């Protein structure tokens, strides 16, 4: 329960940061992570987007249309220009974004980071 409350604090504080600044920070992180992926993994991901399959970008709040267009261009560079990209919203992510490929997910969300932290604490707690 304390961790859920902590997540709610994070959600409230994040809302204080302008959307434009948040979106820029997230897309930069996504670009860096895609660049850092081993070539085999990146090739596998781009192969999944052939034959008209869609990459779905999920964010906690809707991206303004101009920002979404910017993300389309910037994601197209590493993943292939002309790929189909759709945008969806899932408030449970709290912050950050997720890239949903047909057979893989890349998570940059705060929800995922908080889950990893929680899991680590649970393992520690259960060991005592």
């Amino acid at each position, binding site marked *: 329960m304390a961790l859920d409350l902590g997540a709610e604090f994070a959600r409230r504080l994040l809302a204080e940061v302008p959307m434009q600044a948040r979106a820029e920070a997230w897309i930069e992180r996504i670009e860096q992570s895609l660049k850092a992926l081993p070539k085999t993994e990146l090739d596998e991901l781009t192969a999944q987007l052939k034959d008209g399959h869609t990459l779905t970008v999920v964010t906690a709040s809707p991206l303004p249309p101009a920002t979404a267009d910017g993300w389309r261009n910037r994601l197209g560079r590493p993943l292939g220009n002309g790929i189909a990209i759709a945008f969806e919203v899932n408030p449970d992510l709290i912050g950050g974004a997720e890239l949903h490929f047909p*057979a*893989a997910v890349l*998570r940059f969300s705060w929800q995922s980071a908080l889950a990893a*932290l929680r899991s*680590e604490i649970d393992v*520690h707690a259960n060991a005592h």
Partner: protein
Amino acid sequence: MPTLTDDLHDWLDQSRRRLKTLSLEPRLEQIGRVVQVGDGVATVQGLPGTRLDELLIFEGGVRGLAIDLGEDVIGCVLLGDTCEIASGSIVRGTGEVARVPVGEALLGRVVDALGLPLDGEEPPRTTLLSAVEQPAPAIVDRSRGRLRRASSSSTP
């Protein structure tokens, strides 16, 4: 003698140290999708690294056992309520072969296929887990066990 507050501070310090070393780098998670479901069996596309008898987790938390590994699809026995599973549902691998708790704590208990309680009681407290699929004991070993039980039950 340490108080509860001391213990809590100690636990917090240890937790902070562990969290400092935890990497929060994004990870690539492979997923599969249900292409067909019926009669307690789901056909899953994707998850190319799945092992035979691996435990898979479906959307909603239902678990399944990979029992048939094809070139493109996986046949999976569902071990829970299948109502929430539909074509297109996401499936995740666990990398672990299905294992169940074993031991005397199971005696008299009603559990599901993964050892989770169905009798409204607490989960059985066991220290051992055993793979669901494994070779059956040899006939000689089984006979020995039966003889041992028979002799112990006849002892006054």
